[in-house]
C-alpha cells in the first residue's frame, strides 16, 4: 500500500505546472517543455484540437440552421456574452454561456470567457502592437499606479522572440511610440485608409495612421510551416478557428508544439481550486484541482507553477489560495491582490464617409485594418486627463442593392446596384487608470459547482475616462473634417467594462513588495516558485491590445524560471 501511494505521488509530480492553456498559458507550456521540463498543463474546460474541433470552420452561410443568426432563446439566456461582437451561430460553442459560470456584478461588468484548451486565443482580434517606454514609464512619469519594474529594453528581445514564432504581419513604420518588430509582410491599407494616412502625416505632428500589426501569416516562414500552419487565406472567419492556422492561437501553435516535445501532459476538465503552500519549505509545492467530470479532488506537485488562468480567474485562484502564511490570498502580504484592476474603454466610435476615390475599391478581405497609435500625452502631459487612446481605422464600400417592391423588380434589385461611397469607422480604445477601488474579491457565501467562491467584480469608469472619450471625439472629428470626410457621426454607448475583453491587473508587477504582488520576473514576491504571467500581472494597461505583451512577458519569465531551476534557486 505504501508503495502504491509513493507511485501515485510520483505520477502526480512534474517539474512544472501551468494553469491555463490560453494565449499566455500556451506560451508557458511551450517554453517550459522546450527547456526539458516535464510540464502538466491544466485546463478547466474541454480539449479543442486544432482543425478537428472547429466544427463550423468550413461551413457556408446556408449550412447554418439560421444562416448565422442566433436563436432568441440563446440571446435571452445570455445577455452578457450576447453583447460580444464575436458571439454568433458560427462561434457560440467557444464562449462561456452566462448561466454556466456565474459571478457577482457588484457593478455592471461583462465578463467574456472561453473555457477550453486555447481559451480566448481562438477568438481574439489578433491585434499585436508593441509597447514602448512611453507606456512602461507612464505610471512613474504621470504619478498613478506604481512604477513598472521593467522597461522596453527588458522585453524587446522577447517581443522579437514571440513574434518570430507566432508570425506577425506588419510594416516597419519607424514610430518610436509603437516600436517595429519582426514582421512578415504587412497587409496594405486600402485607398481611403491610405488617403487619411497621408493626410494625417502631412498635417499633424506625431500622429500616424498605419496598417495594424496582426498575428496572421501573410507569408509564412519555415518556423510556421514546421508548426503545420499555412498562409492566411483572408477568410475573415477567424472566430470559428482557422483550418489553415492562418492566425496565431494556442491550438494551432504553442500547444501542439509543446505536445511534440514529449514533455507535456495536458489535462482538460481540471478546475484549479488553490495553490498548495508548504509552510516548512516556504514555497508552493503544487495545486489542488477538481476533475469536473468525476468531481474528484486531486493534488499535483511541481517545482515551479505558472498561473495563466486569464486575468480575473488568476485573481480568483490567488485569493482562494490561503494558508497560515497567506491568510488573505496567495502572496498577498501587501493587501493589493485583487485591486487596481483596469481595462480598455471602447465606449465610443465615429462613422464618416468620403466623397472621392470613387474609381477604386478592394478585392478579397483583409484580416486587419488601419491603426492610429496613441498621440495624446505621449511626449508630455498636454490635456486635463491622464494618458490617451489608440484607434482602429477602417474603410469599406459595399454594393447598394434596392430592396423596394416585390417580384422580378425586387429580384433584380438584389443583384444589381452601384458601389456605395467610401465609409470609414474609427474605434476608440482608451487607457484606464488602475485604482484600488476597481477590484475583485471572493464572495463570502456563493460558491460554484467545484466549491470555489464566486468572484465579486466591482469595476467602473471614472472622470478621466469621460474626459478622454470627449477628447477622442473632438480630435478625431477635427482630423476627419480637415481630411474632407462628410457626415461625421460620433457615437457613444454605455457598455459595461469587460466587453473590451481586455481586463487586466489585480496581481500587478512592481519593485516594492509592499505595493505589488509580482517582481520584475513575474515571480510572486513572497513565493519565488510561483509566476503569474497573464493579464493579472499588468501594472497599467496603456492602450495597445495586450496579448502580444502577455506572450513576451511569459516567454521571458519562463526563461528566467528555467535558469533559476538550473541554479537551484527554486
Amino acid at each position: 500500500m505504501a508503495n502504491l501511494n509513493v507511485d501515485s505521488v510520483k505520477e502526480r509530480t512534474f517539474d512544472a505546472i501551468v494553469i491555463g492553456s490560453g494565449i499566455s498559458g500556451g506560451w508557458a507550456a511551450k517554453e517550459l517543455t522546450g527547456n526539458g521540463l516535464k510540464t502538466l498543463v491544466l485546463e478547466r474546460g474541454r480539449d479543442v484540437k486544432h482543425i478537428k474541433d472547429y466544427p463550423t470552420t468550413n461551413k457556408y452561410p446556408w449550412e447554418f440552421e439560421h444562416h448565422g443568426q442566433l436563436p432568441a432563446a440563446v440571446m435571452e439566456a445570455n445577455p452578457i456574452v450576447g453583447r460580444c461582437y464575436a458571439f454568433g451561430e458560427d462561434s457560440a460553442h467557444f464562449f462561456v454561456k452566462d448561466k454556466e459560470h456565474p459571478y457577482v456584478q457588484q457593478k455592471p461588468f461583462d465578463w467574456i470567457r472561453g473555457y477550453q484548451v486555447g481559451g480566448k486565443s481562438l477568438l481574439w482580434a489578433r491585434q499585436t502592437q508593441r509597447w514602448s517606454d512611453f507606456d512602461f514609464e507612464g505610471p512613474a512619469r504621470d504619478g498613478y499606479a506604481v512604477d513598472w519594474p521593467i522597461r522596453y529594453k527588458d522585453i524587446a528581445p522577447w517581443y522579437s522572440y514571440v513574434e518570430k514564432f507566432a508570425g506577425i504581419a506588419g510594416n516597419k513604420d519607424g514610430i518610436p511610440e509603437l516600436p517595429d518588430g519582426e514582421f512578415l509582410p504587412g497587409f496594405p491599407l486600402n485607398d481611403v485608409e491610405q488617403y487619411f494616412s497621408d493626410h494625417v502625416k502631412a498635417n499633424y505632428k506625431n500622429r500616424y495612421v498605419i496598417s495594424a500589426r496582426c498575428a496572421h501569416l501573410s507569408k509564412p516562414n519555415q518556423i510556421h510551416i514546421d508548426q503545420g500552419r499555412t498562409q492566411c487565406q483572408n477568410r475573415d472567419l477567424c472566430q470559428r478557428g482557422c483550418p489553415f492556422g492562418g492566425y496565431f492561437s494556442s491550438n494551432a501553435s504553442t500547444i501542439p508544439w509543446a505536445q511534440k516535445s514529449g514533455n507535456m501532459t495536458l489535462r482538460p476538465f481540471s478546475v484549479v481550486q488553490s495553490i498548495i503552500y508548504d509552510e516548512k519549505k516556504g514555497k508552493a509545492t503544487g495545486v489542488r484541482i477538481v476533475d469536473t467530470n468525476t468531481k474528484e479532488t486531486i493534488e499535483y506537485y511541481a517545482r515551479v507553477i505558472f498561473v495563466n488562468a486569464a486575468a480575473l480567474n488568476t485573481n480568483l485562484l490567488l485569493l482562494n489560495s490561503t494558508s497560515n502564511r497567506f491568510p488573505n490570498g496567495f502572496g498577498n502580504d501587501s493587501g493589493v491582490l485583487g485591486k487596481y484592476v483596469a481595462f480598455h474603454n471602447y465606449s465610443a466610435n465615429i462613422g464618416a464617409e468620403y466623397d472621392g476615390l470613387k474609381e477604386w475599391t478592394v478585392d478579397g478581405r483583409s484580416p486587419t485594418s488601419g491603426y492610429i497609435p496613441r498621440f495624446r500625452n505621449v511626449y508630455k502631459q498636454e490635456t486635463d486627463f491622464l494618458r490617451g487612446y489608440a484607434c482602429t481605422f477602417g474603410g469599406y464600400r459595399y454594393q447598394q442593392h434596392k430592396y423596394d417592391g416585390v417580384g422580378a423588380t425586387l429580384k433584380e434589385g438584389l443583384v444589381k446596384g452601384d458601389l456605395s461611397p467610401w465609409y470609414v469607422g474609427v474605434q476608440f480604445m482608451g487607457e484606464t487608470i488602475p485604482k484600488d477601488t476597481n477590484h475583485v474579491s471572493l464572495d463570502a457565501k456563493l460558491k460554484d459547482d467545484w466549491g470555489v467562491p464566486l468572484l465579486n467584480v466591482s469595476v467602473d469608469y471614472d472622470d478621466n475616462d469621460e474626459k478622454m472619450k470627449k477628447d477622442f471625439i473632438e480630435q478625431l472629428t477635427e482630423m476627419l473634417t480637415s481630411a474632407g470626410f462628410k457626415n461625421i457621426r460620433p457615437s457613444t454607448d454605455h457598455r459595461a467594462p469587460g466587453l473590451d475583453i481586455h481586463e487586466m491587473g489585480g496581481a500587478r508587477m512592481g519593485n516594492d513588495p509592499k505595493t505589488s504582488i509580482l517582481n520584475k520576473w513575474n515571480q510572486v514576491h513572497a513565493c519565488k516558485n510561483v509566476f503569474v504571467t497573464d493579464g493579472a500581472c499588468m501594472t497599467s494597461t496603456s492602450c495597445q491590445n495586450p496579448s502580444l505583451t502577455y506572450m513576451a512577458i511569459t516567454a521571458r519569465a519562463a526563461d528566467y524560471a528555467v535558469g533559476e531551476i538550473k541554479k537551484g534557486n527554486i
Partner: protein
Amino acid sequence: MNRRTVIKNLALVIGGAVLLPSCMSHDGTSYVQLKHVNIDEDQQRLIADVAETIIPKTNTPGAKDLNLPAFVLKMIDDCYDKKRQQAFVAGLKAFTSMVKTKYGKQFGDLDIKQREIILTGIEKSANAVKAAKPVKPDPITGFYWDVKRQTIFGYTTSQYFMTKQIVYELVPGRYIVHYPIKKLNLKSA
C-alpha cells in the same frame, strides 16, 4: 475588438436550403412543425404565397423552389422573441381578414397581379407614413416586413443565390487594394 463588424455583417447577409422537420399536407405542400409559435397549415400556406409573391419563380427559382417559406417560419419560430412572435401572428390574422374583406377571397386564390398590388400597396403606404413621421408599423405592415425581411435574408443567403447569382467566396486567398471598380463587373442599378 470590434474590427470590421460591417464586413462580418455583410458576410452574415450573404448563405439557402435548410433542413426542417416537415410533413406533407393534403395538397402536397410541406407543413412545418413549429416549436414556439402557433401557425396552422392554412396560415403557413399564406406565408408561402406571400413569400412567393415577393420572390416569385421567373426564369430563375422562386421562394417555394428554394424552400424559403420553411426558412421564414424557422426564423420566426426560433429567432423572434415572444413579443415579436405575437405581433407577427396578430399581423398575419389582420392581413388575412383584410384580404378577405377587400377581395372576398383568400390571398392564395387571387391572381398574381392582385397579390402584387396588395403587397406593394402596403409597402408604399408604409413608406409614406415613415417619411412623414417614424412610427411603429401597424400589425399588417409589421407582418409584411417580417415576411419580406426573412424571405430576402433566406434568398440572398441561399446556396442558389450565393453560387449562381453572386459568388460567395469562403476562401478568398487574397486582399488587393487599389482595385479598379470596373474589374468587379457589378451590374449597375
